[in-house]
C-alpha cells in the first residue's frame, strides 16, 4: 500500500444553483495514483476532469465546494487542510503544470524570479545556489541560453517556451506528483510533440508520478500508463492505457476513439450523436444512455456502478460491457469521401503577397504597401470547383492570413485573386460588389464569438437571406427552417439564442448562416478546433454532406493534420507564409516529401501507444521569414548546402501531381522516406 501517492476517496464536488439545488460536477470519484506512474484523465469539456486534477492539490475553484469525500496525500486529506499546511505541499510535493502557460505566468515578473520564488519556498538553497539551479532547470527543459531567458518577461517568449518555463517552475520543488492540465493544448503540433517528449523524459528521469489531464487521446496515448475516462462527472472506464486505447470496453470510449480522424485513414470518421448531459440534469439511468449504441431497457432505468474486472485489470461503468469485449478491436469505419472536383477553376491566387508591416507615412499617403520581406509571399494556388483544399502549417505560417485576403478582410500587397476564370476580386472589401461578397462566405473557429449573442438563431440566419436575396415574410421563414433542417437542427431552434445551444449546435448555426448566402466558396477557419472530438466528427460529416449536395468549394484551414486528412482533396503546406508543397492529400500524407511536411506529419500524435511521433527538426520559433533562400532553411535537417540559404528553391513535380519546392531532387526526397 505504500506505493500509493494520492488516494481519492468518494469525492464529490459541486455548486449550488440559483434555485438552491446542489449540482454535482464530480460524482463520487475514487481512484489511486501510484508512485512513478503516469495516469491520463480524458474526457470532453465539462466532464469534470480539471476539477478532479485541482482537487488533487486541495484546490477547489471559487464558487465550487466539496460535498463529500477526500483527497488523501500521505494519509492526510488535502481538502480539509489549513492553507498554511497546503502551502508546504503545493509546489513541493505536488506541482501543477497549467494549460495555458502564457496566462499562468505572472506578467509583471521575470521568468527567473518566478522560478526563484518556487526555489525559495521549497528548497534550502542560498542565493548563489538558487541562481545555478535556475539555469539547470531551464537547461533541463531545453531552453536555449538559460541566463538570458531568466531575465525575460513571460510575454517575450513563444508559447512553447512559456510551457517549458512552466515545466521548469513545477520541477523546481522536486515534487513527487505532477499534475498536468492540458499542458500541450494550444501549442503547435511540432511543439506539442517536443513538450510531450520532454515530459516523458522527466517522468523516467526523476521517477515523478504524473496525472495528465487532456481531451486529446493522442497526447494521452503518448504519455500514460493508465487511463481514466470521465463522462459527466463520473469515471466510466479505468485501466491500463494500451487496453483502453486498443480494446475499449465502454461504449463512450469506443465511440470516442472511432470519432477521431487518423492520419493513416482518408475519409471521415463516424460521429457520435448527441452531447454530454448538462450538470444538474436529473437522470434515472446511465448518463450515457441517449448516445449509446449498446443500450437496453436496463440502462434507461438503472445507473450502472463502476465494476472492477480482475482479469482485465479494468474498471468499467456499463451493464453491457461484455458486448464490447466481444467486439474487441476498434474497427474504424470511415465514410470515404469522393473527390467531386471538376476541371473548372473557381479561384485562382497568383503571386499573392501580404504584408503586416507597419507602413511608413509616405506609403500611407500614396495608399501603397512596401515591404521587401512580406509575411506571405508568392502564393500561387489554383482551386477547382467543388474541391476541398486545405492550408496547413504551424501558427505563423500565414494560413489564416491568406483566408482573410480571399475574404477581402486584409489587403494584399501584390498579386491577383481571380474568381471563376475571369473576374478579379479586389482584396479590399470596399471595392467588392454585393455579389462578390456573397460568393465567398466564412465560417470562424469559435461560434461563441462569431454569433451575435443578442440575436435569435432566426435573426442570425435571416441576415444573409435578407441582404443578398431580399427575402421577406413567409418566404424568409421557409428558407430559414429549410436551412436549419439542412444542418440537422429542428424548427424550434429559431427562437433560441446562441447561449442556449451547445458548441456543436452553435457551429451548425454558423454553417447554416454561411450556406444561406448560396456561396460558391466557403472559407473554413479552424472550424472544429473549439469543439469536442465527438462533435467534431459530426460537424465534419455535415460539411461533407452539404458540399456533396451543393457542389461548394471549401478552403479549409486547420492545425489538426488528421482532420485535414479526413476532409480534404488537396493540401497546401505553408511555412512562414511561403508554399512548400501542394498536392493531392493522399500523396502528401502517404509520401511526405518536403522536409517540412515530413516534420509536421512526424509530430502528429495518434491515439495509439504503438505509433510514436518522429521528431525531425528542432521546434525553434522564427520571428520572420528569411530574407532570401528557402523559407524552411532555419529548421531544415536536410540542408544540401549554401544553395538553400541563397536561392529560392524551384518547384518540382512528382508523377502523381505533387508540387514540391525544395533543392533536393525529387527522386531523392521520395527515396529517403521509408
Amino acid at each position, binding site marked *: 500500500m505504500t506505493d500509493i501517492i494520492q488516494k481519492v476517496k468518494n469525492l464529490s464536488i459541486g455548486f449550488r444553483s440559483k434555485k438552491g439545488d446542489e449540482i454535482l460536477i464530480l460524482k463520487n470519484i475514487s481512484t489511486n495514483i501510484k508512485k512513478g506512474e503516469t495516469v491520463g484523465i480524458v474526457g470532453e469539456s465539462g466532464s469534470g476532469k480539471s476539477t478532479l486534477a485541482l482537487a488533487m492539490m486541495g484546490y477547489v475553484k471559487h464558487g465550487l465546494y466539496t460535498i463529500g469525500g477526500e483527497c488523501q496525500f500521505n494519509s492526510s486529506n488535502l481538502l480539509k487542510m489549513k492553507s498554511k499546511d497546503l502551502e508546504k505541499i503545493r*509546489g513541493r510535493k505536488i506541482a501543477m503544470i497549467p494549460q495555458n502557460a502564457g496566462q499562468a*505566468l*505572472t506578467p*509583471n515578473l521575470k521568468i527567473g524570479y518566478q522560478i526563484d520564488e518556487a526555489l525559495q*519556498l*521549497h528548497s534550502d538553497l542560498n542565493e548563489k545556489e538558487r541562481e545555478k539551479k535556475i539555469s539547470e532547470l531551464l537547461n533541463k527543459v531545453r531552453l536555449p541560453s538559460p541566463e538570458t531567458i531568466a531575465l525575460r518577461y513571460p*510575454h517575450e517568449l513563444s508559447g512553447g517556451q512559456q510551457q517549458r518555463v512552466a515545466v521548469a517552475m513545477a520541477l523546481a520543488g522536486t515534487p513527487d506528483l505532477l499534475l498536468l492540465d492540458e499542458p500541450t493544448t494550444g501549442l503547435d503540433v511540432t511543439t506539442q510533440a517536443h513538450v510531450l517528449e520532454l515530459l516523458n523524459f522527466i517522468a523516467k528521469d526523476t521517477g515523478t508520478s504524473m496525472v495528465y489531464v487532456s481531451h486529446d487521446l493522442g497526447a494521452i496515448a503518448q504519455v500514460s500508463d493508465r487511463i481514466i475516462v470521465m463522462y459527466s462527472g463520473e469515471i466510466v472506464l479505468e485501466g491500463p492505457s494500451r487496453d483502453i486505447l486498443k480494446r475499449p470496453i465502454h461504449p463512450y470510449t469506443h465511440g470516442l476513439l472511432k470519432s477521431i480522424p487518423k492520419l493513416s485513414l482518408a475519409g471521415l470518421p463516424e460521429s457520435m450523436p448527441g452531447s454530454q448531459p448538462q450538470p444538474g440534469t436529473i437522470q434515472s439511468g446511465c448518463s450515457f444512455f441517449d448516445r449509446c449504441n449498446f443500450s437496453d431497457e436496463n440502462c434507461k432505468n438503472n445507473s450502472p456502478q463502476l465494476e472492477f474486472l480482475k482479469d482485465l485489470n479494468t474498471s468499467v461503468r456499463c451493464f453491457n460491457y461484455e458486448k464490447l469485449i466481444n467486439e474487441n478491436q476498434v474497427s474504424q469505419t470511415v465514410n470515404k469521401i469522393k473527390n467531386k472536383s471538376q476541371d473548372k477553376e473557381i479561384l485562382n491566387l497568383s503571386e499573392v503577397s501580404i504584408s503586416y508591416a507597419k507602413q511608413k507615412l509616405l506609403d500611407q499617403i500614396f495608399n501603397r504597401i512596401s515591404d521587401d520581406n512580406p509575411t506571405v509571399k508568392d502564393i500561387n494556388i489554383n482551386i477547382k470547383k467543388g474541391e476541398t483544399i486545405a492550408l496547413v502549417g504551424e501558427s505563423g505560417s500565414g494560413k489564416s492570413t491568406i483566408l482573410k485576403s480571399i475574404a477581402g478582410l486584409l489587403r494584399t500587397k501584390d498579386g491577383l485573386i481571380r474568381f471563376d476564370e475571369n473576374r478579379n476580386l479586389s482584396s479590399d472589401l470596399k471595392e467588392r460588389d454585393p455579389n462578390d461578397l456573397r460568393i465567398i462566405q466564412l465560417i470562424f473557429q469559435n461560434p461563441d464569438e462569431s454569433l451575435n449573442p443578442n440575436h435569435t438563431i432566426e435573426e442570425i440566419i435571416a441576415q444573409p437571406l435578407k441582404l443578398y436575396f431580399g427575402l421577406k415574410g413567409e418566404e424568409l421563414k421557409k428558407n430559414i427552417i429549410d436551412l436549419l433542417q439542412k444542418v440537422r437542427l429542428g424548427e424550434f431552434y429559431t427562437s433560441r439564442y446562441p447561449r442556449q445551444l451547445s458548441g456543436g449546435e452553435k457551429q451548425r448555426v454558423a454553417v447554416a448562416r454561411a450556406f444561406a448566402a448560396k456561396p460558391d466558396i466557403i472559407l473554413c477557419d479552424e472550424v472544429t478546433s473549439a469543439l469536442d472530438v465527438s462533435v467534431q466528427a459530426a460537424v465534419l460529416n455535415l460539411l461533407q454532406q452539404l458540399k456533396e449536395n451543393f457542389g461548394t468549394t471549401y478552403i479549409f484551414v486547420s492545425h489538426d493534420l488528421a482532420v485535414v486528412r479526413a476532409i480534404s482533396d488537396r493540401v497546401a503546406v505553408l511555412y512562414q507564409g511561403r508554399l512548400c508543397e501542394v498536392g493531392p492529400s493522399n500523396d502528401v500524407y502517404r509520401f511526405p516529401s518536403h522536409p517540412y511536411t515530413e516534420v509536421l506529419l512526424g509530430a502528429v500524435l495518434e491515439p495509439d501507444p504503438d505509433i510514436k511521433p518522429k521528431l525531425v527538426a528542432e521546434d525553434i520559433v522564427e520571428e520572420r521569414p528569411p530574407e532570401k533562400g528557402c523559407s524552411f532553411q532555419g529548421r531544415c535537417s536536410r540542408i544540401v548546402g549554401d544553395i538553400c540559404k541563397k536561392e529560392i528553391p524551384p518547384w518540382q513535380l512528382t508523377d502523381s501531381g505533387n508540387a514540391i519546392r525544395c533543392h533536393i531532387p525529387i527522386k531523392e526526397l521520395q527515396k529517403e522516406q521509408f
Partner: protein
Amino acid sequence: MLFLIIKRILLGFITLFIVSIITFVGTEILPGDACTTYLERQAFGEQLEACYRRLGLNVPAYERYVSWALNAIQGDFGYSLSGEMPIKEVLGPRIKNSLVLASAAIFIGIPIALILGIITALWRDKLPDVAISTVTIFAMTIPEFISATLLILIIAIWLEWLPGIVIVPTDVSFLELLPNIILPVVAIAMIMTAHMARMVRSSVIQVMASEYVQMAILKGVPYWKMVFKHVLPNALLPAINVVALTIAWLLGGVVVTEVVFNYPGLGRLVIESISNRDLPTVQALAIILASIYVSINLLADLLTLILNPRLKTLQIRK
C-alpha cells in the same frame, strides 16, 4: 520609446492649441467685450474708443490671438479686467491654494482608497467587503454640495470644532491654515476615495480570478506574498489612469466645494471671473486647466508604460 514620448508631447501641444482657439473664438463670439463690460453705461463714443485702444481691442481678432498666444507661452496672460492687475498675479496665489487643497486630498484619499479597495476585494462578499462597500457606494451617491453643507452644519455649527468657511489668508503658516482646510479636504476626499476604492476593488478581483494567481496559489506561494507580488502590481496598473484623472480634476479646482467653503482656489476664480465677464482671466484659466489635464494624463501614460513590461516591448516590436 523616446519617439513615443515625443509624439505624445506633440499631441499634447496640439490639444492645447485647439483649446486655446476654441476659448478665444468663444469669447469673441459672445456679445459684448471687455470694454463694454468695464465701462458699463458709459460704453459708447470716445470713451469706448479709448478703452479699445488701451486694451488693444481695435486690431483684427487673429492678430490679437497671435500676440495673446505669444505672450501666454511666456506666462503673460495680460491684465485681469476686474482688478486691473496682471492675471499672473491673480492666478499665482489661487494656484497655490488649489494645490494645497488638492495635495491634502490626494495624500489622504489615495492611500485610503487603495487600502479600502484592496480590503474589499480580498474579503470579497464577506463582512468587511459588505460594510465598506455600502459606505463607499453611499459616499459616491451624495453630491458634494450636500455632504459639504452637512459637514459645515454638524462640525462647524453644531459642534463648533472647526471653522465652517476659510477665513484666514492662505499665506499663513501651515498650522494656522490646517483647521481651515480640514472640512473642504474631507468633503472632496470622500467622493474621490469612494470612486477610487470601487475601481481598485474590481481591478483586484479581476486579477485574483486570473490563471496566474491560481498558479501562484498552486505553487504554494503564501497568501500575502501572492497578494503583494502577483496581484497588486498587476491590479494597480490600470488604476494609474483613474488616479491621474482624479488628480487633474482636483487641481482644476473643485468648483462646488470651493464655493461652499468660500475657499480661494482656482475653482472659485472660474466662477468669479465668469460672473464678472472677466474674459482674459477666463481664457487664461481655460488654457491652464487644459495644460494640467494634458500633462497629468501624459505623465500617467508614461508611468503605465514604464511599469508595464508588456507594453514596453510591444511598442518596440511593432
